[in-house]
């Protein structure tokens, strides 16, 4: 069978085929648009930041200026920490560090102790230009402690005195509140010192940050030269509102670094710090543990150096990428929507086009094809699309035309064949009729021959008897006695001839019903018909009769079979002209207990190549006049179909042997 076919599958295939490039190009266009949108948004973010930075820079400059302007007023205020770094006679900070015990530090510590308010436990410290603790004053339980720190090979050495008049002694450690905050060159120290500056008197500092600045302290020397003897460091604590103001102004998030320490901010990603480091002469690092990093945050960052006298103050600002992504996503969704709309327009259009240019002509062709299948030759298909389908239509038309011609030829041929067949059948029927007629005639001739043989002898005898009457008269022998004898003899002969007629009539009368009989009875009947013919043809007949079981069937049919085989044997001798022609008939019982009759002749046998054909109908070796090829076929039918027996032919010795088992 043909596979199940949907009429619409082609349309979908074509649509699918067109869908692939459409989708591909949409993806490409989408990708390019996405890229452009991203670039656009990146640029916009950068521009936005640049604008924000300009604003921010102005704001910070103003902050710095204002700070400088009000520097003098900072002294004595609680939110301002001032520290003095006294360098004295040393030119460089490195030289200054080498000194272990410096009278300037003592003097500085005494100054600090005067600044410390007596009423409370107060600590006030001084640092050098790098933020190292150098001296401090501590009021505790009504006592004033002075302290200085010197450094030997990078390790701090502490000296403390109880009050200004008491001697200085080396201390094992600093007071607890300062403990752990000292280690030269360590980042922790740097940060802690800033924190110390930013948290005057160790009060808990509210959320905010410090902006500090340094001022050189110079002295005029006798040689009229001037040298820096110390630094005054000022730090102003700024509260959160300052950052918020900046943030709002610039519309960006920011962090503020000083030196290597993050002093304010909440946004920075560690991975952006190297980038910031490249942008400034200072390296910047924050301690991730002390900074609250927003989770999964991602920023476009920019570092901005705010120049201060003491060093650059760095502002690191950023725009959250998520915001950018959100905008990019918005654009992407817009792009996707546009693409989907165009796709949803393109696909039905392409389907429509495919349907019009391909599926429709194909359906048109299909209808013609179906018509052709049904044997309707329509007019030529017209497809003027000028493409392969038009070619297909042309090809179809050619095929249709060729088919039409072929069909006409086949019809003609068919009619001719039919005529021939009819003629042949007729001829065959005629031949068959003729054959049947011939076989009837042949049977009749056979019978007449047999009758002739049977009658010839008594006829001869009768002829002689009649002529003898005249002869007897001539020789005076004709008396009553002679006549009686002659009449009796003649009547006997006539009676014999009459019996022959009865025998023949009985033999060919069809059996009314099956009955039990002995094969010897049938053999006698057959021999009564053909015996004389055999004898007259000089064919010796030898019969050997053993005991055989009675069989059931039609005795005449069976006798006819025997007659047929005997008759064939007789004809075989007639054709062969052999010496001492003999037919042997043996009746006995087969090993299976059937009645067996074996008829054998010495007429040379049946040629091996036709041995398996002799039972086929119309097979004969005889000429038309002599045989029809029906005899053995009928014999086989009678024995095997009617009597459920078997008939076999074989060559045995110098003749044919037929064996009948019933």
């Amino acid at each position, binding site marked *: 069978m043909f596979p199940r076919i949907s009429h619409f599958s082609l349309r979908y295939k074509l649509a699918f085929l067109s869908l692939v490039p459409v989708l591909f190009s949409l993806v490409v266009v989408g990708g390019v648009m996405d890229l452009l949108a991203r670039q656009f948004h990146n640029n916009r973010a950068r521009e936005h930041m640049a604008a924000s930075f300009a604003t921010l820079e102005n704001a910070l400059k103003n902050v710095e200026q204002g700070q400088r302007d009000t520097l003098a007023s900072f002294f004595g205020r609680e939110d301002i920490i001032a520290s003095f770094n006294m360098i004295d006679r040393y030119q460089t900070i490195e030289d200054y560090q080498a000194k272990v015990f410096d009278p300037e530090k003592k003097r500085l510590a005494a100054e600090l102790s005067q600044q410390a308010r007596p009423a409370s436990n107060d600590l006030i410290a001084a640092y050098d230009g790098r933020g190292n603790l150098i001296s401090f004053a501590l009021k505790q339980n009504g006592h004033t402690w002075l302290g200085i720190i010197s450094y030997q090979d990078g390790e701090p050495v502490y000296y403390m005195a109880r009050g200004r008049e008491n001697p200085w002694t080396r201390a094992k450690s600093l007071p607890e509140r300062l403990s752990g905050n000292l280690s030269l060159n360590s980042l922790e120290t740097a940060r802690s010192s800033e924190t110390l500056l930013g948290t005057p008197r160790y009060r808990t500092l509210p959320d905010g940050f410090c902006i500090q600045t340094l001022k050189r302290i110079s002295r005029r020397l006798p040689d009229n030269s001037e040298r820096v003897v110390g630094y005054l460091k000022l730090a102003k604590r700024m509260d959160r509102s300052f950052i918020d103001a900046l943030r709002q102004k610039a519309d960006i998030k920011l962090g503020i670094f000083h030196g290597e320490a993050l002093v304010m901010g909440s946004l920075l990603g560690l991975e952006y710090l190297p980038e910031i480091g490249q942008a400034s002469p200072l390296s910047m690092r924050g301690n991730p543990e002390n900074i609250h990093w927003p989770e999964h945050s991602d920023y476009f960052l920019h570092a901005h150096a705010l120049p201060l006298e003491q060093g650059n103050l760095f502002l690191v600002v950023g725009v959250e990428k998520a915001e950018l992504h959100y905008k990019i996503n918005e654009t992407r969704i817009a792009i996707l929507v546009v693409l989907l709309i165009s796709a949803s327009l393109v696909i039905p259009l392409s389907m429509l086009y495919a349907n019009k240019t391909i599926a429709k002509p194909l359906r048109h062709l299909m209808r013609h094809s179906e018509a052709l299948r049904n044997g309707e030759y329509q007019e030529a298909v017209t497809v003027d699309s000028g493409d392969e389908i038009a070619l297909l239509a042309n090809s179809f038309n050619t095929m249709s035309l060729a088919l039409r011609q072929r069909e006409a030829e086949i019809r003609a041929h068919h009619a001719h064949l039919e005529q021939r067949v009819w003629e042949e059948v007729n001829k065959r029927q005629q031949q068959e009729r003729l054959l049947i007629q011939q076989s009837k005639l042949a049977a009749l001739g056979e019978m007449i021959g047999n009758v002739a043989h049977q009658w*010839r*002898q*008594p*006829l*001869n*005898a*009768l*002829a*002689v*008897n009649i*002529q*003898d009457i*005249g*002869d007897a008269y*001539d*020789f005076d*022998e004709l008396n009553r006695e002679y006549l009686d004898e002659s009449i009796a*003899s003649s009547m*006997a*002969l006539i009676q014999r001839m009459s019996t022959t007629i009865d025998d023949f009539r009985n033999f060919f009368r069809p059996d009314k019903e099956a009955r039990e009989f002995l094969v010897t009875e049938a053999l006698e009947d057959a021999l009564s018909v053909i015996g004389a013919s055999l*004898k*007259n*043809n*000089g064919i*010796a007949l030898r019969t050997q009769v053993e005991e055989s079981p009675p069989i059931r069937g039609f005795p005449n049919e069976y006798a006819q079979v025997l007659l047929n085989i005997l008759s064939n044997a007789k004809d075989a001798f007639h054709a062969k002209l052999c010496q001492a022609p003999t037919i042997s008939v043996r009746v006995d019982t087969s090993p299976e207990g059937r009645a067996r009759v074996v008829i054998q002749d010495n007429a040379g046998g049946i040629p091996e190549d036709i041995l398996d054909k002799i039972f086929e109908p119309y097979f004969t070796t005889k000429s038309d006049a002599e045989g029809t090829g029906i005899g053995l076929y009928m014999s086989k039918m009678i024995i095997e179909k009617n009597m459920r027996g078997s008939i076999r032919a074989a060559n045995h010795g110098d003749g044919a042997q037929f064996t009948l088992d019933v």
Partner: protein
Amino acid sequence: MDTKQQFKSLSVVYAEDETEMRESVARLLRRRVGSLYLAANGEECLNLVRDHRPDMILTDLEMPKMGGLEMIQHIRREFGDNILIIVLTAYKDQAHFTSLADAYVYKPMDTAELFTLMARFSSEET
């Protein structure tokens, strides 16, 4: 034609296997020939010929044990053409088998024809 023709000098052997035929023909022959010997088949006939050296043989062709043809061949071989042989047969088409015979009478037999033949042969003999 003389219907009472007699050939009393002739010695004849007659071979015929059918008893009735043999007896009927024998009755006709006895009235005319000198001596008549009857045989039921070719073998008997041959023995009679060997014993009695007849002048003439009348024989059927189809006979059991030894057919007429075989018997005639034997006789010609043993006795040459000295013995006249007349074949009595129903089969005209079998005549060519017996070119060795001198004459043929076809059955049903016309006795007059047979006697004419016998007369001719007996006169030739004498």
